[in-house]
């Protein structure tokens, strides 16, 4: 991110970049909606043609092999930063469980060595791996989240279309939950987390319309180092911390009458994982803001130093606290 154009609480429009309002520029990365409304993002751009990527589906019985491959991929000190991995295990009401890997290698090179530990796991239920465009691969990825029900709604529109009316929307919304935690990369602990997740399935399997999944993604030092070289972040992450694993629990379900149960089981999974992480000596405070549930505190998870810096930037650019108390949505810097 080279520059933000941002509207501040007093209505002024300013630029925030490395040389101008640089404290605001750093604060915005991870600082969310706490400083103003960003009206334009200026992003560094580079050449990129088609590249290799897609999604592979496996039976849930491959879980242990998946976790071993994940652990080794994440801990590799010569991490190939053309590669990306999103590993999920999930249950869908009426369909059962599966393991799913999103694999990406940003060169038009099929099946590079770094990702073969995943592509060689057998058996496989299906695979969409191919060389394709960034747009196509991200559209596919987007369709895997329930908002991708929009594409299904188009089909519904076709089925229910009545010639003398113009249907403009068929409103199908599922109830959604994201809740997250982070811990250090450790093979035996990854297995513990998977078992903990597996134990939750019997508690929610009868929920109407349920999809229930845990997703692991590595946060490797190379990513943090790169971010630091480009100006840093406000999230309190340092390459010296070693490899971290972000875990996201997602739930999607139909009826508000199941809210209490779903929230309870999801929250319980995170609490148990955090407790076990302490016991195993692998805990970490980072909570990725975009995966955090309303009850979580990603700002505190950045650590005291980062939080203090963010608060200082808020007082400088928004002394009346308009984006603290006037805009209560999101995760605030002072009111928790």
């Amino acid at each position, binding site marked *: 991110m080279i520059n933000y154009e941002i509207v501040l609480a007093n209505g002024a429009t300013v630029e925030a970049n490395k040389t101008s309002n640089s404290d605001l520029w750093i604060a915005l990365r991870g600082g969310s909606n706490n400083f103003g409304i960003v009206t334009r993002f200026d992003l560094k751009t580079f050449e*990129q043609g088609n590249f290799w990527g897609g999604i592979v589906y496996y039976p849930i019985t491959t879980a242990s092999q998946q976790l071993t491959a994940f652990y080794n991929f994440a801990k590799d000190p010569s991490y190939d*930063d*053309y590669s990306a991995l999103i590993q999920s295990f999930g249950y869908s009401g009426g369909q059962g469980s599966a393991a799913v890997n999103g694999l990406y290698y*940003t060169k038009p090179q099929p099946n590079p060595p770094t990702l073969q530990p995943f592509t060689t796991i057998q058996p496989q239920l299906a695979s969409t791996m191919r060389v394709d465009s960034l*747009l196509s691969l991200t559209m596919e990825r*987007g369709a895997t989240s329930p908002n991708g*029900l929009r594409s299904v709604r188009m089909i519904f529109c076709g089925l229910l279309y009545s010639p003398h009316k113009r249907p403009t929307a068929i409103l*199908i919304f599922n109830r959604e939950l994201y809740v997250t935690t982070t811990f250090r990369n450790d093979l035996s602990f990854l297995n513990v987390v998977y078992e903990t997740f597996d134990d939750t399935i019997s508690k929610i399997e009868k929920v109407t319309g349920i999809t229930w999944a845990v997703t692991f993604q590595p946060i490797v030092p190379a990513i943090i180092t790169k971010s630091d070289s480009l100006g840093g972040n406000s999230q309190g992450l340092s390459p010296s911390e070693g490899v971290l694993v972000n875990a996201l629990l997602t739930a999607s379900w139909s009826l508000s009458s199941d809210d209490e149960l779903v929230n309870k089981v999801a929250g319980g999974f995170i609490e148990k994982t955090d407790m076990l992480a302490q016991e195993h000596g692998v805990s970490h405070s980072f909570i990725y803001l975009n995966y955090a549930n309303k009850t979580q505190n990603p700002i505190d998870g950045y650590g005291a130093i980062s939080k203090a810096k963010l608060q200082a930037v808020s007082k400088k650019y928004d002394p009346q606290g308009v984006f603290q108390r006037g805009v209560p949505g999101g995760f605030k810097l002072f009111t928790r």
Partner: protein
Amino acid sequence: MFLRSLLKTWTLLLLPSLLSHARVGFSNMADSPPVNPNATKSATSTPSDSQSQYDALIKVLPGKVSLPLDPTYQSSKTSYFSQQEEQVSPACIVTPKNTNDVAAAVKALASLYESSPSSSQFAVRGGGHTPWAGSASIEGGAVIDMTSIRAVTVNADQTVTSVGGGATWSDVYSYLDLKNLAVSGGRAAQVGVAGLTLGGDFESLKMPLC
């Protein structure tokens, strides 16, 4: 997040179960107000007392502030990711078209907030993908819906892409793909640029910079 891909593959098998389980409301903007079985308030046909405090805002941004029965309001309200967020009913929705509009909205809403802090908070909405209710909407308050500000351009030497604050990654990639260019960004196309970036994304497709 992941098994919906199975849904995509076996859509025809799943359609009956989705129809029976899903809350379906059939909306036709041309005729009557939408029937939303989840609605907890009935919409009124005239601005209520709580909405009259927005007169100054409406004056500053004529044609860009919509109320519950307006199509613009309904279209915005029903375009969130989660049912929980879709069920939140703001008093009005502001749809700025450019930076000046955003500045005018912020100025008006900030001064409204400062004069009556307990009754006039507001929210900012980008991609609308955060699941929990109230993250990018607000019951009885004003929502600044950024989704009209989504233009994507690249500079002459193709080193910098400028993206409107309300854009999604699909806006960015569909523009850049044609030029064989990319930026380091989200992997799910319908997610907003603002939330992902400002949330400190670690999970974008990290393409090494040349």
